[in-house]
Each structure stands twice: as structure tokens, then as C-alpha cells.
């Protein structure tokens, strides 16, 4: 019979939760830097510069076609080897967290730039023109008129992108990082391969709660932004 003891799920949770800060750190750091990079990518596409546009489009196409695990392996195994061969720099001693974050930023930037771009395109052009015509500079118009409106439009897609990022971060265990997923696998190893179903359930519960909190946050933000508008 398949043994499954629900009480173990609860007893495994505290140990797994101790790895949660690392997962959250990776996610938050990636969102911050990745959004900047993604913003630059969408700016390159909207700026009208043909070369920049082509570069950004090519980057997004390539990342869209790359499985997250392959990106992670390329960055973790490939980057040190490549840099050593190319520039003679040794980065093998860097923490695994750094490699995970680099890979996640590369992935997240591409998906979030598409979100930014479509949100920006959804704002009526008159808004930009109106902002400029009352004497705001281009930057002020962007910051005070376009960004708040764009953010509201983009919010559901941003949530989706963050959710996907959270799921991709779970792959970090394959290179030996002890995030929530990695802690789960270590726990199974420590139990000599037993209670794997209970452990995975506990890990899944953590991800479910994170996703639930994320969608609740999205929901309240959307509501409060709607309220301000009316």
C-alpha cells in the first residue's frame, strides 16, 4: 500500500519554512533588477530605434524559446567555464545564489518587458499628448501620467509573471541550492528516501500559500487603484 501520513506534512513544515527567506530573497531581488532590465527592453522596443528594437526583439525571442532549466544550467555550469576560456576570470567560487539570480533575471526581464510594453501600448496616445501640452517634460509625463495608468493595466500580468518566476525559482534545487524545494529534497535524503510524498505536499503547501498571498495582494491593489480612479 502507498503509505501516506498527513501528520508528517505538518511536522515537516517548520524545517522547510526556514528555507523560505532564501526563496523570497531570490524572488524579490529578481523582480527589482529584472524589472529595470525589462523596462529597458520595452523602452528599446518602443523608442523607434530600429537597431535597439531588433536587439530587444531577438533577446525576447531567444529567452521565450529557452527552457528555464537550460537557462539555469547554462548560467551555472556554462558561465564560469565561458568566462575562464574567454577572459580568464575565475568565478567558480561564487555562491550558487548569484547564478540562480542571474538566470532568473534573464528570464524574468523578457516576460516582464512584454507586460510593460502591452500596458504602455494600451494607454491612449492622447494621455501622452495632453501631458506634454500642459507643459510637463517627457519624463514628468511618463512618471506622473503614463506610469500610474500603465501600472493598473499591467497589474494582473505582473502578478502572473511573478507567479511564473516563483515556479521557476523552484528549479534552483537542481544545482544544489537549499531553497524551499531544495530543503524538501534534503529532508527526503535525510529520511533515507522515505516520506517523499509528505515532504512534497509540505513544499507544495508553501508554494500554494505564497501564490494565494500574491493573488490576494493583486486583488486588493487592483481594487484600491480602481477606487482612486473613480
Amino acid at each position: 500500500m502507498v503509505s501516506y501520513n498527513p501528520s508528517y506534512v505538518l511536522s515537516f513544515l517548520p524545517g522547510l519554512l526556514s528555507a523560505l527567506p532564501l526563496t523570497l530573497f531570490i524572488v524579490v531581488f529578481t523582480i527589482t533588477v529584472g524589472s529595470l532590465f525589462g523596462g529597458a527592453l520595452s523602452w528599446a522596443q518602443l523608442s523607434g530605434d530600429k537597431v535597439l528594437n531588433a536587439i530587444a526583439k531577438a533577446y525576447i525571442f531567444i529567452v521565450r524559446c529557452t527552457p528555464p532549466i537550460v537557462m539555469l544550467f547554462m548560467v551555472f555550469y556554462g558561465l564560469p567555464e565561458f568566462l575562464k576560456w574567454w577572459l580568464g576570470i575565475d568565478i567558480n567560487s561564487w555562491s550558487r545564489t548569484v547564478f540562480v539570480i542571474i538566470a532568473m533575471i534573464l528570464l524574468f526581464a523578457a516576460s516582464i518587458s512584454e507586460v510593460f510594453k502591452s500596458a504602455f501600448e494600451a494607454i491612449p496616445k492622447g494621455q501622452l499628448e495632453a501631458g506634454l501640452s500642459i507643459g510637463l517634460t517627457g519624463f514628468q509625463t511618463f512618471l506622473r501620467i503614463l506610469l500610474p495608468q500603465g501600472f493598473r493595466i499591467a497589474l494582473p500580468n505582473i502578478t502572473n509573471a511573478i507567479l511564473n518566476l516563483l515556479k521557476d525559482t523552484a528549479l534552483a534545487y537542481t544545482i544544489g541550492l537549499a531553497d524551499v524545494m531544495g530543503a524538501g529534497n534534503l529532508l527526503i535524503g535525510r529520511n533515507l528516501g522515505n516520506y517523499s510524498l509528505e515532504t512534497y505536499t509540505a513544499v507544495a503547501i508553501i508554494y500554494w500559500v505564497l501564490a494565494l498571498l500574491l493573488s490576494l495582494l493583486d486583488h486588493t491593489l487592483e481594487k484600491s487603484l480602481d477606487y482612486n480612479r473613480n
Partner: protein
Amino acid sequence: MNFQYILETFIKALSGIPVTLGITVVSIILSFIPALFLALGRLYKVKGVTKFAIVYLAFIRSTPPILLILFFYSLFPSLLNNLLKSTSINVFDLNPIIYAFVIFSLMTTGTLSEIIRSAILTVDKGQLEAAQAIGLTNTQAYLRIVFPQAIKSALPNLCNLVINLVKGTSLVFVMTVKDITAIAKIEAAYGYHYFESYFVIFVIYILICGLIQLVFHFLEKKVAII
């Protein structure tokens, strides 16, 4: 950088393409019928279907695929072994690709049902009513009038689904299925040529996904004429 090695690995990794595409195609075929019923059930407001679909989608959407794979890969073999104890089938001789089919179908069903539902919703309700008015049965009306029109709006989303599925199958190496990624991983560990190996499959994945996008682009053009 060893170009001879890159070429050799490229040819070896190519032999993983049938596995990758096989899992993709089989998962879509297996999940199509349940997804269709789920979508129609929601459209016709069959009791319980909407609630089930929302809960199911929420769970699948918020669980990392790698976790689902590991969970079911620890569950299925012992479960099947238990069920098939009386028969002479040895579960542990089964090709693990079968588990991959099941898991990826489970993951695809939710997304596919959403795609089908939104595609059917884009077809004007008058079309179905007109078809019924001229005496077609419900099945005929759907098959001949609604679906051909719905396909048009479903194609871009289907393209996305297929690409995500191809990318998702790269995780099957944890189930010892030898797809493109698994072959590259073995090659990399064998000769310590990590960068070359992963670069090779990076290129292969770009080629596959580029081709898929081309095919869908062609299909979209073809459908647009109708």
C-alpha cells in the same frame, strides 16, 4: 571550446527530439477531450464544473512543474504496483515516459480548457442559434459552425501552449526519461564540457520553438483566408 565535441553532442542531442516532441504531442492529444468537456461544462454552467475548474486551475497554476513531476513520480510507480500486483505486469519495467505523458496531460488540461473556452466565447452567439435554426443538431452546429471560427482566435494561445509545453518537457530528466536536456546533461557530466553541452541544446530548443512559431504563423495565415 571544442568544436568537434559541439558537433558530436549536437548530433547526439538530436536523438532526443522525438522524445521531447512525443511528450508534447501525446500530452495535447490526451488532454484535449477532458479540456473540451471542462470548457463546455463551464459554458453550459453544468453544476460543479466551474468550481472544480477554478480550484483545479489554481492548484496547477501555483505548483512548480518540477514539484508536480517529483510528487507524481514518487506516487505513481508504487500506486500502480499495488494495483497491478495480481497481474504479471512489472510496473518497474515500464518506460517512465508514460508517467511523463500523464503528468504533462494533467498540467495541460487546465490551460487548454481555458483556451477552448475563451475561443468559443469569441464566436458570436448568433452563429450557433442560426445553425440550430436551419436544423443542424447541436453537435453538427459545433463541429461545422462554431469550432472552425473559434480556431482562429485560439491559434495564438495554442502556439504559446505548445511552446511552454516543449520548454516544460525539459524537466523530464528527473524521471530518467532521455529527452534533449537529459542527453546533454549526461554528455556534460561525462566529459566536463558543461558550457558546450548546454549551449548545444540551447540552440536546439531555439530551433524547435522557432519552427513551431513558423508553423503557427503559417496556420494563422491559412485560417485567416477562410
